[in-house]
C-alpha cells in the first residue's frame, strides 16, 4: 500500500479525529483529481553543459528507491549508450558531439499530458496535479500499453518476475510529499539539476540562454515537445546529438486518440437505432414481396 492510499484509508476511517485532517483530506482529493493545469506543476531543469558525468544521480536514485528494485550498476561504462531499465530509473550517457563530450541524464520526462496515463485502462499510471507521473502497483494489470504509447519509451517492465512491476522514474513523488527535493537533484554535485515550479524553471532556462547565447542552442527541450514535459533540458549542441528524439512534434499525445474516443458514444447511440430501422424496413419489404408472390400464385 503506498502512502496516498494509506492516507485515504486513514482519512476514511478516522476522519475528523486526525489532527491534520484538513491537509490529509486535501491530499486524498489530489489523488483522485485528474485535472491538469489547476496548480503549477513542479519540474526539473537539466543543464547538460554543467553535467560532469559523475553518475551520482544514478546512485542517489538507487539509494532512494532500493525497495522498488532500483539498482546502481557499479561497473557501467560510457562506451555504450545505455537506456533506463527495469532496474534503473535514470542513466547518464556520454555523447561525442560537435562541441566535444557532453553528458546527458535520461529518465521519464513526466509529460504534462502523458501518453502512458492516457493509455492506462486502470489508471495505475497517473499524472498527479503536483507534476510527477506515478504508477500504482495495486491497479496495474501488466498490459504494457503504456510502453507501447510512451513517445520516450520510458516505462519498463519486469519480464523476469512472476509479479512484474512497471518501472520508471516517479520524480520522487514520495519525497516531494515530505517537502524534500528529488534525490537526484539534491545530490547533484555539479549543479546541473534544478528543481522548482515549471514556469520559473522555464524563465531561468531562457535567462541562461540570453546570458550566454554562444554556449547554448536556443531551445529548451521539453518546453513544447509532446505538449510540454516536466523535465526541461538545456544543451550546447542540437538535441539529436544527445540522443533526444526531435521528431515527436508539439501535440500532446492524448490528442491523437481523442477523436476516436469522441466517436465512441456517438456510434453507440446512433448506430443501434439505425440498425433497428434498417432491420424493420428490410423485414417489411420481405413481407410485401411474399404477399406479391402469393397473389401471383407462386409458392
Amino acid at each position, binding site marked *: 500500500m503506498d502512502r496516498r492510499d494509506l492516507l485515504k484509508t486513514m482519512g476514511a476511517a478516522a476522519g475528523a479525529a486526525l489532527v491534520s485532517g484538513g491537509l490529509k483530506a486535501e491530499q486524498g482529493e489530489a489523488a483522485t483529481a485528474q485535472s491538469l493545469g489547476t496548480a503549477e506543476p513542479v519540474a526539473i531543469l537539466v543543464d547538460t553543459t554543467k553535467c560532469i558525468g559523475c553518475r551520482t544521480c544514478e546512485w542517489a536514485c538507487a539509494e532512494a528507491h532500493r525497495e522498488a528494485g532500483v539498482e546502481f550498476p557499479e561497473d557501467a561504462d560510457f562506451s555504450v549508450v545505455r*537506456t533506463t*531499465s*527495469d532496474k534503473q530509473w535514470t542513466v547518464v550517457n556520454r555523447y561525442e558531439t560537435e562541441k566535444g563530450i557532453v553528458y546527458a541524464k535520461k529518465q521519464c520526462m513526466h509529460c504534462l499530458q502523458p*501518453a502512458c*496515463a*492516457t*493509455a*492506462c*485502462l*486502470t*489508471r*495505475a499510471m497517473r499524472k498527479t496535479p503536483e507534476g510527477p507521473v506515478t504508477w500504482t502497483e*495495486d*491497479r*496495474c*494489470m*501488466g*498490459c*504494457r*500499453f503504456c*510502453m*507501447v*504509447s510512451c*513517445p520516450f*519509451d520510458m516505462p*519498463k*517492465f*519486469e*519480464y*523476469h*518476475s*512472476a*509479479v*512484474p512491476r512497471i518501472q520508471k522514474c516517479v520524480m520522487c513523488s514520495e519525497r516531494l510529499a515530505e517537502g524534500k527535493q528529488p534525490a537526484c537533484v539534491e545530490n547533484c554535485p555539479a549543479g546541473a539539476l534544478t528543481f522548482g515550479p515549471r514556469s520559473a524553471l522555464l524563465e531561468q532556462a531562457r535567462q541562461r540562454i540570453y546570458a550566454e547565447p554562444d554556449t547554448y542552442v536556443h531551445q529548451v527541450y521539453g518546453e513544447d515537445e509532446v505538449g510540454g514535459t516536466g523535465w526541461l533540458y538545456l544543451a550546447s549542441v542540437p538535441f539529436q546529438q544527445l540522443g533526444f*528524439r526531435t*521528431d*515527436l512534434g508539439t501535440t500532446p*499525445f*492524448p490528442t*491523437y*486518440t481523442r477523436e*476516436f*474516443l469522441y466517436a*465512441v458514444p456517438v*456510434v*453507440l447511440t446512433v*448506430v*443501434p437505432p439505425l*440498425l*433497428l430501422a*434498417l*432491420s424493420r424496413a*428490410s*423485414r417489411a*419489404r*420481405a413481407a410485401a414481396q411474399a404477399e406479391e408472390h402469393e397473389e401471383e400464385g407462386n409458392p
Partner: protein
Amino acid sequence: MTAVSQSRRALVGAELRRFGKFMLHELKPKGRVLTPFNVISGAIMLVAAVLLAIRFARGLGAITNLSQDYPWGFWIGFDVITGVAFAGGAYVLTFMVYILGQEKYHPIVRVTVLNGFLAYVFYAGALLLDLGRPWRVINPIIGNSFGVSSVLFLVAWHFMLYMMAEFVEFSPAVAEWLGWRRVRRFLAGLTLGAVIFGITLSLLHQSGLGALYLMARDKVHPLWYSEFIPILFLVSSIFAGLSMVIFEGTITHKVFRHRVGAALHASHDDIVVGLARIAAGAMFVYLFLQLLVFVHGQRWVYLGTGLGAWYLLEMVGLVALPAALFIQGYRGRDLRVIRTAAVLTLLGIVLNRLNVSVIGFKWYAPVRYVPSWMEIEVTLAVIAAELWVFRWVVNRMPVLGTAVGLVRDAPAREARAGVLAA
C-alpha cells in the same frame, strides 16, 4: 408444505437426474479418441501447459522474446489483433441476415457466430497469458479505476460485452440441444437485440484495435502508420471475417459432413459465391482507402526500401490479387478459385496485422523482436483448444445448416439421446 409443492419437488428432482445423465453422456467423446489430430493437438496442448507453468512461475521473459523495446509480440499481434479480425465474420453475417434480411445466408449464421464466439473466448482469452498481472484484469471492470481515456479500456469492455452478445446470439442452439423449448423461445427473442448490440460493438472494437496504435505513431513504420488505421482495420475485418467463413466452411464441410443439415447442403455453394462477391467489394473499398492513405502520406518515398517491397507484397499480392480472384470465382462460380482467394486474403490480413504490431513496429530498433518457438507453440495450443471445443459443440448442438429462428420444434431429449447412442 403442501402436496403440490412436494410433487413439484419430486418432478424437479427427476428432471435434474435426467439432465445430469444427459450431460454425462454428452461430455463423453464421440468417435475414436486416438486419431492423429487428437494425438498431435493433445501433445501441443500438454507442452503449452508446461510452458505456461514456467511463464507464470518465472515471468513472461522466461518463455517469450518480449523486451523493453517490444512490449507486445506474437501473442498480441497474432492471437488478439489478427484473431479478432478473423472473427469479424460473425458481425458481418448477422448484419446481412438479421438487418438486411438476406435469408440466403441464414444457414451459416450459427456456425459463424459459434466460431466468432470461440475466437473471442480463446484468442482474446489468450490476452490473459500475456498480461503481466492477470489477476488484476477485473480492475477496469469493477470500477475503482476506470481509465476511460484509454482506447484499451474501450477494447477490453467491448471484448467482454461482445462475447456476451455472441453467446446470446448462439444460445438458442444450446437450448435446442438441451430440449428447453420455452427457454429457447425466450432466448430467440433476444437475438435481434444482441445482433444490433453486437454489430455496434464490433464497429468500435475492430477499429479500436487499430486505434491502439494511434499513440505509437512514431514507432510504427510510415508505410503502415496513418491516422486512418482504425478505419482500415474496420474495413479489412469485413473481408477478413468473410474469408475466414469461406475457409472454415470448406474444412467444416469435409470434417463434419454427417452434421451438415439439408438446407446448408443445398445452398452451400451459392452462399460461398455470394460471400466472395461481398468480400471482393469490401476489398476494393479497402484498396481505395489504402491508395488515399498512400498518396496522402506520400508513402512512395519508402517503396524503394526492403519494407517497401514487403508492403507491395501485402497490398498487391495479398489484397488486390485475391480481390480479383474473388471476382473471377464469383463470375465463373468456381469454388476452387474462391477458396484460393480466401486463403490469400487471410495471409494478407496476418501480414497486415503483424506489420503494424510487430514487423513494422520499432522498425528502427537495433535489436528486432522475433517470437520464440515457445510463443508460437502456445499460440498453436490455443488454436488446438479452440478446435476441440468447436468440435465438441458441433458434434452435439444443432449448428451446421440449421437456420436460427426457423426451427420450430427441437427434437425431444430422449429421442436425441437414443439416436446419438446408436
